[in-house]
């Protein structure tokens, strides 16, 4: 615990030192999370996802499952990333409702998948402080 406080303090210090040239320490999860506005993920979402999942993340009744306050998204990190990366078909249950549609893979890069995963899991009331990374996405196999 002491260690953590110490490293956090250090991170803030590093951050403060660099603030003049507006650099943030991207390797640090904590700082990254606090400073994140998920704008890159938001752009990907609006471009590739919003038409079906809707700008408010609520999906469409019976056809497109919601992302907003979605138990599937929150509880199934691996399956969610896999779905974005490779597509998803067959029955899934989200917030007690059964869906049986097909989502095609959108051809996103690993970085874009991490960005959009972080956006959807930190928007519309969702919270996920352990951010997905390009490397994590890269290592997920079909």
């Amino acid at each position, binding site marked *: 615990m002491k260690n953590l406080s110490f490293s956090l303090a250090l991170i803030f210090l590093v951050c403060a030192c660099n603030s003049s040239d507006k650099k943030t320490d991207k390797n640090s999860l904590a700082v990254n999370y606090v400073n994140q506005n998920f704008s890159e993920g938001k752009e990907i979402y609006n*471009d590739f996802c919003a038409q079906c999942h809707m700008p408010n993340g609520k999906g469409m*009744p019976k056809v497109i499952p919601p992302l907003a306050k979605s138990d599937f998204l929150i509880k199934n990190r691996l399956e969610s990333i896999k779905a974005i990366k490779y597509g998803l078909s067959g029955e899934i249950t989200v917030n007690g409702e059964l869906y049986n549609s*097909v989502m*095609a893979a*959108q*051809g996103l890069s690993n970085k874009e998948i991490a960005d959009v995963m972080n956006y959807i899991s930190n928007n519309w009331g969702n919270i996920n402080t352990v951010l997905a990374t390009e490397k994590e996405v890269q290592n997920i196999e079909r």
Partner: protein
Amino acid sequence: MRAQKSTYFLLLLFVFSACAQDKNPINKNNSYEVVVEDLTNPWGFVFLPDNSMLITEKEGKLIHYKNKIKNEIKNLPEIYVRGQGGLLDINIHPNYKKNGWIYFSYASPKGEEKGGNTAIMRAKIKNNALSEKELLYKATPNTTKGQHFGSRIVFDKEGYLYFSIGERGNRDENPQDLTRDGGKIYRLNDDGSIPNDNPFVDSKGAKKAIWSYGHRNPQGMELHPDTQEIWTHEHGPKGGDEINIIRKGKNYGWPVITYGKNYSGTSITDETKKEGMEEPLHYWDPSIAPSGMSFISSNKYGDWKGSLLVGSLKFSYLDRCDLKDGKVIKEERLLDGIGRVRSIEQGPDGYIYVGVENLGIVKLIRH
């Protein structure tokens, strides 16, 4: 009490989803027979003279379907499968029997910039592979945006080749600028050269292949069987899908005039008409997300002859539009709930064939 509550909730849900639908009545006196099974996204298909079919799968597969067997055609160009892009429409030369040319559209990564843009290629098929490939058109610049590749290909009676390219998610720069690709209908000779009488051949800096402009994302295009005019439909913004008749050099107004709104609900413009811009022959509000287009010109469907058929991706039906004096006077839902309708063709036998996502190609039967 609990059951009552959930009944109430279901009812509410039903009412809510009913509101989002359009009001076109359902016609139940029709059904279908699956002709080609197990397709994911049959973006386009065409019948060959031997009654076999060429089918495009968006993910980048070209299928030759003959005697109930699917053969994959190899040696395709590099295809940029991202967002709405992939292997798209397909058609054959009017003189295919003699020259063997097939034409297809696809998202291509060719070029300097990252990303892709719509390309038109012609080729011949030898031993289940493409040969004599000729790239006829490649829109520039590439972009990593996922939207609006257009893609439909038709020939008119004089043998000119027309195709659509959507505005690639850049509505503020592309559709109204003749020096840029995207948001246009194009016209070429069958070998890819530019016809001398194209409308903008003498305009400085203009893309000379442009035939009309101010489009958003046309994914249906067909020659009217009687008038020989080119009819298109296009995905508009929310509440602004359109049918247009395409005329030489005309501006179809996107994004200056539209009946639609942004998907977020905010306004794009209040204007639906403006001098020098064409208004749609018909528009859909709510949007049906139209894809695929065909006229019924055969005698196989009784008094449906002369109807325009449009696929609805969003509401999963085949929209039959009754036309009178070149206007849509009535619409009804055929094959209601069948799935996302992507492509429509009238076969050489006069029957209507419909490509449906995650189902296949089906034949429309009227009872």
